[in-house]
């Protein structure tokens, strides 16, 4: 038995106010079940990953009125959580532990009068005592600061340039222009990228992902069951995770090699494919640099050659390796790694409208968490694996 994504639900995303993360999560699960053609009482597994405010939690079960669950858990591996949840759901389905598992994320960091910076920067948070407080007091806080140092090290080591990072932002914005759900759709040029305000050198504003309120869920069932449900099944061919830890000492690969270097090749090995077989990439893109280093670590180009690899528009509409075809987290919306998962499902079903890619037999999805030390990978396909009646 193999597993497939049978349902997809996504709430309105972006500056959507008046609902809590738990409200978004409940709505996303309802939408995903309806999309699959299932009623809520047919869901017997629920996996939840919390957003920045610590919601949703296990209490989502009560909010949805779900009973008789045979699988219920909070999964937390930061940005690696969604693919990790789908992997757990697939194993539960394959083992018979559950038959229809909802995997959900939601967050509501944006407040009507607050800025995105306030949402993720912690505002005037109290400075803890001890070493943790030392980092805060030095202003070594927020993902911007740490990812910027990772990107700077890559640039110092391999000669990667800001313009090369900008090519990723420009290409994804072109994709976003064809996505009605994207928060930012106006075309940008490399000059716009270079002229956008510096956030944390080398990152300009247009190197950084957007911030969104909203929720997303998928329903995972067996491939056999998915065949009889409402939507085309998206098969989960393989998955992998890697959590290499972050060594803070001489010899550390911080900024140069990430958890993707283990997770990506392992997932592709389990699926029996190589990078050359991949039609479509949906990569976690908290920053432009996250895309670049993931391409290297997955083996789409050699280590250190990511800058040249992306500079010619290969990832953009019309390029040879379509990547983040919904605009990604940089332009479309940020729902942790559900951003790439949603786009993979929409493309895999052939429902992407104007931005639909022609070749979609093999889709690779990444999730990345912490400062590049938690990684998860999915290999998806609209085609059932060999030997499975899908």
């Amino acid at each position, binding site marked *: 038995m193999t597993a497939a994504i049978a349902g997809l639900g996504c709430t309105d995303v972006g500056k959507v106010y008046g609902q809590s993360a738990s409200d978004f999560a409940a709505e996303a699960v309802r939408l995903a079940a309806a999309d699959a053609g299932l009623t809520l009482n047919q869901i017997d597994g629920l996996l939840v990953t919390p957003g920045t405010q610590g919601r949703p939690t296990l209490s989502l079960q009560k909010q949805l009125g779900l009973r008789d669950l045979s699988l219920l858990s909070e999964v937390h591996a930061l940005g690696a959580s969604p693919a990790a949840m789908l992997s757990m759901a697939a194993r539960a389905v394959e083992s018979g532990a559950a038959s229809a598992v909802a995997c959900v994320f939601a967050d509501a960091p944006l407040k009507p009068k607050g800025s995105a*910076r*306030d949402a993720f*920067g*912690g*505002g*005037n*948070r109290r*400075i803890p*005592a*001890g*070493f943790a*407080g*030392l*980092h*805060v*007091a*030095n*202003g*070594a*806080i*927020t993902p*911007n*600061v740490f990812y*910027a*140092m*990772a990107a*700077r*090290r890559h640039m*110092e*080591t391999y000669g990667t340039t800001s313009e090369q990072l900008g090519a990723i932002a420009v290409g994804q914005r072109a994709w976003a222009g064809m996505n009605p759900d994207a928060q930012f759709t106006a075309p940008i040029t490399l000059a716009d990228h270079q002229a956008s*305000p*510096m*956030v*944390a*050198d*080398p*990152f300009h504003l247009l190197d950084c992902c957007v911030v969104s309120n909203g929720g997303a869920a998928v329903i995972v069932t067996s491939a056999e069951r998915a065949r009889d449900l409402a939507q085309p099944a998206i098969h989960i061919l393989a998955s992998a995770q890697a959590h290499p830890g972050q*060594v*803070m*000492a*001489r010899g*550390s690969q*911080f*900024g140069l090699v990430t958890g993707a270097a283990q997770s990506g090749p392992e997932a592709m090995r389990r699926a029996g494919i190589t990078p050359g077989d991949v039609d479509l990439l949906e990569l976690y893109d908290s920053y432009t640099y996250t895309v670049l280093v993931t391409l290297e670590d997955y083996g789409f180009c050699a280590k250190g050659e990511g800058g040249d690899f992306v500079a010619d528009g290969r990832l953009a509409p019309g390029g040879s390796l379509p990547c983040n075809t919904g605009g990604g987290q940089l332009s479309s919306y940020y729902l942790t790694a559900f951003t790439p998962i949603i786009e993979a499902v929409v493309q895999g079903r052939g429902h992407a409208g104007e931005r639909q890619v022609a070749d979609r037999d093999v889709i690779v999805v990444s999730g990345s968490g912490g400062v590049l030390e938690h990684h998860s990978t999915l290999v998806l396909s609209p085609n059932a694996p060999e030997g499975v009646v899908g």
Partner: protein
Amino acid sequence: MSTDETTATWPDVRSDAKSQEFFAAAEAGELRIRRCTDCAALLAPESTTCLECYSTELEWITAAGTGTVVTWTVVHRAPSPAFAALVPYTVAVVELTEGPWLYTRLADGVPDRAGAPVRAVYLQASGGEHYPIFTLTEGSL
């Protein structure tokens, strides 16, 4: 006695049981790191487990207070309102001569390359503990 105006605006740092010796040494102008008493590996100050042998028997030693810049960022957009008057400032990863890395801040200047040499200087914000940051000894833009 008035403190340096630049340093006075940075947030206070408070010690706790695990960091007390580190901050007390900083007040005396010394940088302390950890050494594994089982295998002698040298570790970052906040370490609780040896990276080499997984021992939890760690002791404090005094480091030279010198190192090199591994990477850095000039922060332009304040991560919280507390830093609004402090930007732009430079956060860096420093590799101590002994090997451990520290997330820290550079007192002045921006490195012109990875590998630029630094040395520790000791600050006290308005009322908290003294603590080390680093200054470029050459290679400043």
